[in-house]
């Protein structure tokens, strides 16, 4: 189970993270989940072997302040989230503008919960399974 979770708002995020950094924590990663109407972002930090988390609810369309001014290590995961979830992250040290993992022809924000992407072949009509289906693992 996830313990040691602290709820936070986007405007207080950078200040809170700077405090956490001052306590000697290590930046671990950010997890983003699409909840349908909002994105759920969890920032993970390692405090001498103990994990602590900051939880952020970000409505669709809102921008996210970047942590890369505090922790340069955050820049890679923030670019990934910008690509895969379509969240605009502002003030990143290196901004790939949505071309970090994806190309021009890639689907937009593929990890959001939208219908039609990565349909499981088993729920399709039998005729459609003959074509190369995206649901196959490899």
């Amino acid at each position, binding site marked *: *189970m*996830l313990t040691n979770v602290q709820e936070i708002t986007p405007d207080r995020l950078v200040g809170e993270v700077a405090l956490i950094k001052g306590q000697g924590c*290590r*930046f*671990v*990663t950010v*997890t*983003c*989940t699409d909840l349908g109407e909002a994105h759920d972002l*969890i920032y*993970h930090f390692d405090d001498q*072997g103990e*994990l602590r*988390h900051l939880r952020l609810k970000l409505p669709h369309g809102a921008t996210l302040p970047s942590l890369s001014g505090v*922790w*340069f*290590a955050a*820049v*890679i*995961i923030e670019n990934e989230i910008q690509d895969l979830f379509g969240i605009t992250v502002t003030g990143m040290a*290196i901004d*790939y*503008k949505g*071309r*970090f*993992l*994806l*190309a021009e022809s890639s689907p937009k924000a*593929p*990890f959001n919960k939208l219908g039609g*992407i*990565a349909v*499981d072949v088993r729920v399709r009509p039998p005729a459609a399974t003959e074509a190369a289906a995206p*649901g196959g*693992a*490899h």
Partner: protein
Amino acid sequence: MQTTATSAFPTRNTVIPFGPQHPVLPEPLQLRLVLEDERVVEALPAIGYCHRGLEKIAEKKDFIQNVYLVERICGICSFMHSLTYCQGIEELMKVDVPSRAKHLRVVWAELHRMHSHLLFLGLVSDAFGFENLFMQLWRVREHILEIMEKTAGARIMLSVCSIGGVRRDLDDGQMAEVLRVLDRVEHELEEILPTLMNDYSVRQRLCGVGLLSPDKAHDLGAVGPTARASGIPMDHRQTGYAAYGDLGGVTPVTETAGDCYARIMIRVRELHQSAEFVRKAIQKIPAGPIAVPVKGNPDGEVLVRMEQPRGELIFYIKGNGTRNLERFRARTPTFANLPALLHMLPGCQLADVPVIILSIDPCISCTER
């Protein structure tokens, strides 16, 4: 991207794309290197050449099928991924894994760590131009792959870990054979490793190259051997998951220099540590069942951490009470080591770039998933 990288520097600088196809890179990673003569001034990573959207597929498959899916995140340390995933699901569903299964998991996990480290040492030897060493080390690695094929049924994609335990048991004969192979591997390594550790030309290529100070390693979130080579005693086996708690605890192998040589020495010393763990696990293995049946579906969220050959592996698993997961996310060690790599490169010579990149043991398929 390219225009912003070049315009910030005076015209005397050169930008060269290093990769995605490069003789030393087994996997497609591109680094855009800004050079001033032969010296690297800045490095920018460009990944996305093998992004498979694996986290999204994991939401479409049911949670038992995912065991075989997450195993294919990485083609080298596959067992570690399935072990981490199974531990996460077991924590969510409050499954108590039998002790024998935990010991067997340690056996396979440490065999995997050994073959991964041998693969790395071979690749890095090839990167600094010692092809003989590369072939010798991979010949030794073959013994481990063969014993994995005999015990688990496959050379790399073991598929032996399942939710609630393991799928195969080892009988006494197989355990004796594992021990025999370990002795043979260590005997053969005795002949090869001194060359890797002490050879003049090897030291010339590695010592003092790609320095990473402990403060910077901590600040940039480096994990695993990259952090341990800078003197940070971080090894998640210390938390005692699987049977590590019963095997007398783990003392992290650390070096202080923080250069490429130290990162390689960490792997060399961990080879012996891993062999010792396999021996201990086989010695202390209790009798009993190897798996418990699992009923129900996972609900809730969990974050599991584990020590993979390259460092700390993190899975975030969120279940919603159905057979499908709400969200599955993997943070692999190379992902965490990339910022450290970007810090090591500026200031080094272009000829040292391949060695520095390989010294973090990059696994790009893991990074992009």
